[in-house]
């Protein structure tokens, strides 16, 4: 009896020690043996692409990779089973409400700039009007504007340039009566290129502002 108690205490200590020593490492939740059933159904995304999920517990792990396919864990310990793709009607019966509440995928616009300038390329001026349209269409309350540069010029200069570019776009959106408090501005200088290049290389695709409309 006493031994069991000591053993239990050591386990508890071990658990906490683990958590103490490495707080960054996520301690994985241990599936409870008598926990309720989990069902996972894979779906095609907005672009029709079907990915892959792995469902695992103490009984093992199973992969599903077909649209409508289901994996089921009856509890935390028994083996996971998979099922042939479900009919759309059956999926909607169970998940209809959740699916109806699923927000639209955010849209990301990339606006390109002329060399060493906060002036947009001609093509991107057109894109800018679609940004505004997407904001109204989604009734967006969350817009992120991130400025970037290529790797010509000094790092610190580029940080300032990427900031000016982002602010220029923010200013434009405000002029189209977008509420300033929903626009979040950030700038990464040359540190976050779309196309990786050595230092000093002029790359038009990296002279950009990325706008995400959520």
């Amino acid at each position, binding site marked *: 009896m006493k031994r069991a108690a000591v053993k239990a205490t050591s386990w508890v200590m071990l658990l906490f020690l683990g958590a103490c020593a490495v707080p960054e490492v996520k301690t994985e939740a241990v599936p409870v043996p008598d*926990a309720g*059933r*989990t069902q*996972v159904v894979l779906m095609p995304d907005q672009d029709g692409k079907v990915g892959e999920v792995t469902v695992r517990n103490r009984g093992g792990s199973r992969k599903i990779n077909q649209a409508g396919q289901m994996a089921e864990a009856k509890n935390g310990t028994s083996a996971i089973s998979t099922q042939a793709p479900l009919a759309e009607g059956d999926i909607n019966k169970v*998940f209809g409400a*959740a699916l109806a*509440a699923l*927000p639209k995928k955010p849209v990301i616009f990339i606006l390109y700039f002329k060399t060493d300038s906060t002036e947009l390329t001609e093509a991107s001026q057109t894109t800018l009007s679609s940004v505004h349209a997407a904001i109204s269409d989604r009734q967006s309350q969350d817009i992120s504007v991130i400025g970037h540069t290529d790797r010509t010029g000094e790092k610190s200069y580029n940080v300032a340039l990427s900031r000016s570019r982002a602010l220029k776009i923010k200013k434009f959106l405000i002029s189209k009566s977008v509420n300033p408090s929903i626009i979040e501005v950030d700038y990464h200088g040359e540190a976050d290129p779309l196309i990786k290049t050595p230092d000093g290389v002029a790359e038009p695709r990296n002279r950009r502002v990325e706008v995400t409309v959520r």
Partner: protein
Amino acid sequence: MRYFFGVLCLILCLGTNAVAASNEEAAIVKNCSGTAFIVRQQRTLTVKKSERIYSGDLLRTGRDGTLGIIFKDNTILSLGPRSELLIEEFHFDPSRGKLSIVTRMLKGTAAYVSGVIARLSPQSVRFETPSATIGIRGTKFLVKVEDGGEEE
């Protein structure tokens, strides 16, 4: 002695956890209907559109409630009625390589579309339920978790 050490460690850990739970903004509410709540630091708040959601928040919907949110990394998640989901961990800081999104669903139904974190670092994404852990490779999926044997 051993006991003392255990207690000491427990105290230390609680301290660490309190700090670790300092709340990074994780998502924004895009859709909500019926009764939906956020439980944040033991307080229950009614959800409104455009409400910010933080790491550590518990999302809960009532019998007529639904909720749809978009995370900072563009992960999209929604809950059907009678659901509960905890935003256990969220870090989105690609320039420092700090990426993680861990959600734990306690009951109900959910739809999930993975975002940038799943693309950059699939091993940093986890969706947990009481009976399983779901690993994600860039995709959309649905989850139903039964509440410990209780069927609707």
